[in-house]
């Protein structure tokens, strides 16, 4: 990350005993979709909820972006939160990069956090970014280990650099296990068309296509379209890998059992950590990378489907943490 | 044929089929009908005459339930009725053939005819077989020659008119309203229509008949009502008036006598056409090797039954349709010129269908003045529209051509058909044309306006204008033309001397009678 002093987060420890100062009114600005998208906005919301109950915060204010809006609107959203006395202000999503930078400069006394972006820097901006590629590497390896047909699939929501990071990690992980493995990859829509995150029907068709073409494990980074991927996996007797949250827990009951594992991107932890450090008065500006080392990204083991390969996965994890394996962030 | 009417049983005759009392209908800015009274006896052909915009069509639409009167009483067979829609009128046995065709081009004849009273089988499905049979029967009985499965768009105007009549007969109407049914027909067709009407009257039907052709009215009507500016002005007996008297009643003043005609033909060629061929989409030649020359000061008339290539010929000359052959305007070969260039070169154009080709109905009159002359003074200066110039000139046209309008800012759609036509004629004459292509210049125009339009044409001819006149009105053709040609199936089949020919002779030449022998 440029400019900002890069630090590594300390993993969250449950049951904090730190006394919360009252009156920390949290303002949180979501990206399109907002709370309840069962995807990454929801993860942020989970962190906020946890902070609220554990740190006994007053009611936070949550605002959501609209599709197709301009930077000016995002800026105004943050500014409204800041002027209305909300501090700290958390912006979810890289699209807030420019606006956070601008508004943070206007309100030096307000602490800002931005998720998924390290480009907006300032003395009162904390950048919470994730090593999605590292987590994806592990589920990629899991997919390859579990695939009997040597054929795995990746379904991306929208072809943007962030999602391509998932793809790159996944492919690298699968290749690490079996360098001749077939990796099918497909995106549901192209920017600025963001419907790919909201189209389970397309997710299903794509995954069906992959399964018909021989894939038996399919990983998705497609937000709400993921439910279609799970359905296709169920119908095609294949396995699926969830994303962001532990989808073996959150997915619909009918398809839960096809979720072999999930790539955990612990936005909730990041948000909670930030709010906790704010409460403790120890907010650090600059980039905090949530990577494998700090368990900011990880794979899930719910359902016990990866228990048999867990040792191998842990081995890969160690190699990544130790730097022995360098996971690429971009495809090709 | 009035014997037929007399043969109706007397007790029926005693009872009027239609009585209208005190009918008043207002439109914004206009009172179309004011306190109109009309009594139509059963078994009569009752004619209604009046100038354009006098309110004839409005009155008939009221009778037919398409419009509701503001005041007044309608009685059918002595019973007062209040129709909320044509449905009621149809049920009461009234049928109407409208002034403008009420046909859907993209539907078949059958579909157009049965619409609204479809014979059914099994509850909802249309019984096409029964419908086809019934149409055939009616068509044969009255010699209408109608093919039920043709698309209406493939029909010529004459056939369309017959479909309209068939529609009414199909519903078994006892009272027929015919609003200008003959405007588009040639004499033979008119004669056939009248024969049919007489048969119908003979069967006890009642017919209300509107026409601007007063001789027709006199020949067919049993009674005549004259309407002027929305009011009933006279009820006359056809045997007791002349056409001229009738016309004077209509316009409310004395008509000047017709001027005598003398030739103004020069030997300077204005327009010459050679080997002109226009192909229809199916490859058939709609216009086939047509050649003619029009000199300055000459009116060349083209006679022909509608649909024999006149429309294509005119559109080819205007450059609106691709054609083979050459067209010369004076010395210039204009075959490859665009329509705009031809118009700029001095060709004026009075189109056959004023609504489709002549006007922007939703634009004000002064913008309609610009249409077709948008590159020339007084409407334009270079690439700019000269609003003041166009408006001023529109005022002038309205004045000189007697366009009756509340102002030049009203939409063209607000004018009556006759007044729309006068505007078009005025506009085309104002472009200082060298050649005028006039297609049915007086169709649907009342006698007064008709005469005015003819006068304008004659005056321009005297100034050296060359006119190509296409018309279905044979009197008009014979009266105006210096030379007459007959077109049949796209070919010029005869040259006729207008000073020697009668409408009847011309009519038979047009239908190709005697062509084979």
């Amino acid at each position, binding site marked *: 990350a440029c400019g900002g002093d890069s630090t590594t987060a300390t993993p969250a420890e449950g049951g904090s005993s730190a006394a919360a100062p009252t009156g920390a009114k949290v303002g949180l600005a979501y990206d399109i979709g907002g709370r309840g998208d069962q995807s990454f906005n929801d993860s942020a919301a989970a962190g906020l909820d946890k902070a609220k109950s554990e740190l006994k915060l007053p009611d936070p204010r949550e605002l959501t972006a609209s599709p197709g809006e301009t930077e000016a609107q995002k800026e105004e959203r943050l500014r409204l939160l800041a002027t209305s006395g909300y501090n700290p202000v958390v912006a979810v999503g890289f699209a807030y990069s420019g606006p956070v930078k601008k508004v943070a400069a206007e309100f030096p006394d307000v602490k800002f956090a931005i998720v998924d972006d390290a480009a907006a820097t300032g003395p009162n901006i904390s950048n919470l970014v994730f090593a999605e590629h590292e987590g994806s590497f592990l589920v990629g390896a899991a997919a390859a280990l579990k695939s009997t047909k040597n054929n795995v699939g990746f379904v991306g929501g929208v072809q943007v650099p962030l999602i391509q990071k998932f793809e790159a990690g996944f492919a690298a992980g699968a290749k690490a296990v079996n360098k001749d493995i077939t990796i099918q990859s497909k995106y549901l829509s*192209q920017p600025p068309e963001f419907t790919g995150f*909201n189209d389970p029907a397309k997710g299903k068709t794509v995954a069906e296509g992959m399964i018909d073409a021989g894939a038996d494990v399919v990983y998705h980074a497609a937000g709400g379209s993921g*439910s279609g991927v799970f359905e296709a996996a169920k119908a095609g007797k294949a396995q699926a890998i969830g994303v962001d949250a532990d989808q073996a827990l959150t997915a619909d009951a009918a398809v839960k059992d096809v979720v072999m594992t999930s790539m955990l991107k612990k936005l909730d932890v990041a948000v909670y950590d930030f709010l906790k450090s704010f409460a403790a008065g120890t907010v650090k500006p600059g980039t905090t990378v949530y990577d494998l080392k700090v368990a900011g990204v990880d794979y899930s083991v719910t359902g016990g489907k990866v228990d048999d390969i867990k040792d191998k996965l842990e081995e890969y994890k160690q190699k990544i943490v130790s730097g022995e394996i360098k996971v690429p962030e971009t495809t090709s | 044929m009035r014997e037929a009417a007399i043969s109706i049983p007397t007790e029926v005759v005693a009872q009027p089929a239609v009585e209208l009392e005190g009918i008043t209908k207002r439109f914004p800015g206009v009172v179309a009908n004011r306190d109109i009274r009309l009594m139509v006896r059963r078994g009569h052909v009752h004619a209604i005459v009046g100038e354009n915009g006098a309110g004839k069509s409005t009155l008939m639409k009221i009778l037919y339930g398409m419009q509701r009167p503001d005041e007044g009483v309608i009685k059918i067979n002595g019973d007062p009725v209040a129709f909320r829609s044509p449905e009621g009128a149809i049920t009461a046995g009234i049928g109407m053939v409208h002034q403008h065709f009420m046909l859907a081009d993209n539907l078949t004849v059958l579909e157009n005819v049965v*619409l609204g009273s479809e014979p059914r089988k099994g509850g909802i499905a249309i019984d096409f077989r029964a419908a086809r049979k019934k149409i055939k029967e009616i068509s044969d009985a009255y010699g209408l020659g109608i093919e039920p499965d043709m698309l209406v768009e493939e029909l010529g105007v004459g056939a369309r008119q017959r479909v309209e009549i068939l*529609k009414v007969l199909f519903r078994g109407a006892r009272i027929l309203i015919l609003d200008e049914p003959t405007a588009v027909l040639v004499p033979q067709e008119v004669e056939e229509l009248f024969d049919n009407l007489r048969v119908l009257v003979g069967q006890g039907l009642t017919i209300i008949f509107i026409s601007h052709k007063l001789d027709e009215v006199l020949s067919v009507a049993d009674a005549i009502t004259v309407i002027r500016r929305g009011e009933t002005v006279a009820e006359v007996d056809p045997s007791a008036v002349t056409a001229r008297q009738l016309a004077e009643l209509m316009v409310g003043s004395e008509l000047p006598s017709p001027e005598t005609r003398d030739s103004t033909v020069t030997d300077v060629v204005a327009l010459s056409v050679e080997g002109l061929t226009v192909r229809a989409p199916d490859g058939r030649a709609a216009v086939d090797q047509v050649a003619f020359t029009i000199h300055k000061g000459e009116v060349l008339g083209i006679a022909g039954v509608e649909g024999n290539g006149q429309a294509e010929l005119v559109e080819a000359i205007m450059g609106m349709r691709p054609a083979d052959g050459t067209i010369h305007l004076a010395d210039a070969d204009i075959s490859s010129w665009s329509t705009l260039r031809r118009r700029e070169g001095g060709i004026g154009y009075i189109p056959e269908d004023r609504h489709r080709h002549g006007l922007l109905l939703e634009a004000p009159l002064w913008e309609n003045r610009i249409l077709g002359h948008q590159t020339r003074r007084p409407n334009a200066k270079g690439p700019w529209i000269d609003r003041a110039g166009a408006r001023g000139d529109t005022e002038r046209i309205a004045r000189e051509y007697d366009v009756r309008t509340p102002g030049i800012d009203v939409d063209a*759609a607000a004018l009556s058909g006759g007044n729309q036509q006068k505007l078009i004629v005025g506009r085309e004459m104002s472009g200082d044309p060298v050649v005028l292509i006039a297609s049915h210049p007086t169709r649907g125009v009342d006698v007064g306006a008709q005469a005015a339009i003819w006068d304008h044409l004659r005056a321009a001819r005297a100034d050296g204008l060359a006119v190509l006149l296409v018309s279905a009105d044979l009197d008009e053709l014979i009266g105006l033309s210096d030379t007459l040609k007959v077109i049949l199936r796209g070919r010029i089949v005869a040259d006729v001397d207008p000073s020697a020919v009668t409408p009847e002779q011309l009519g038979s030449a047009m239908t190709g009678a005697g062509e084979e022998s």
Partner: protein
Amino acid sequence: MTATGLAARQPTGTAPAARGFKLTWPVVLLGVAGFLALLSLVRIVTGATDIASGGTVSAALSLAVPIGLAGLGGLWAERAGVVNIGLEGMMIFGTWFGAWGAIVTGNPWAGVVAGAVGGLLGGLLHAVATVTFGVDHIISGVAINILAMGVVQYLSKLVFAPMRGGGETQSPRIPGIDRISLPGIGEPLRQVESNGWFFVSDLAGVLRGLTQNVSLFTILAILLVPLSVFLLWRTAFGLRLRACGERPVAAESLGVNVYTYKYLAVVVSGALAGLGGAYLSIVAAGIYREGQTGGRGYIGLAAMIFGNWRPGGLAAGSTLFGYTDALQLRQGGTSVHALLLFVALILAAVAVYQLVKQQRVRAAVITAVSAAVVFTVFAVTDTVPEQFTSFTPHLTTLLVLALASQRLRPPAADGVRYRKGQAK
């Protein structure tokens, strides 16, 4: 789907194809067979096994259904003379109400009905605006699209957010609709298909896609096409309705209450678009998600125009769209690359036809050059970039329209404001 509509268009004549050319069952079947044979050839040459597989056909079918339903909705409205750009909005209502109905009753068919009713309400609004108030049809449609978006977002916040598994932008899981298969032939067909024989395997694939694991809703949707043909072209009701779209004053002058028919048509139109929406949420996705329609209402409208305002044509249009969409979604790079060869072959055939049969040398040369260009692209690449495959269905539609002869014939009074008693 296609064949039914095409066969039914005969009685009203004027197929959009060249004059004098009649679409009869044998011609249609022959065309389909030729098409399949060519696809088969391309499959064998390129090894793109997915282009006629059962999975592709099945996916094509389910991608085509919502578009076809929206298009059918458009057809009903426009045949009565009301332009319906509000299909998208009515479809949005359909997705939301379909999901809601199925969830609160626990019965997916109740959801289907609710979705239709949701769309119907949108249609009713459109009818009130355009027929009663004489508002410009496009304005009303655009307004309905905006309104629908706002209303369902608002409703989701109120209704779905508090539900278990629901959120502000999505519903809980929707109970599914049964799928059926023609028994006994699924496995044999799969066997034949996997052998990779010329033509036979492809035919097996197509049959398998059409007969196996088909949702009952899909069957209902397909049946709506011939049903529309019957109602609109064979009944008195349909004749009157179409007359209102061709020449309302003529209908009025014969005692037809034009308002009534326009109302009915637009309301049915809304219900059909609503069904399309309900299909998306209930069958295709099993869940309601905000923005799920993804512009399919507009595509439906395009399919209807593509199909020349005819049920068979729009079915063909939506099938083409669904098929190419299925190709690009399932095996994007490979299949679309193979499609290039297919296009090159078709173009070459057209060039020959133009040269030999029509003697249009210039056109033939242009077509031949295009064929060569497409072939070269095919030959020098071995896949198509993802960004390009994404618009395969759109580009295909555009190309077909650009190449096919255009004899589009919208209803004559389509979009024209009508008021009773205003006849001139």
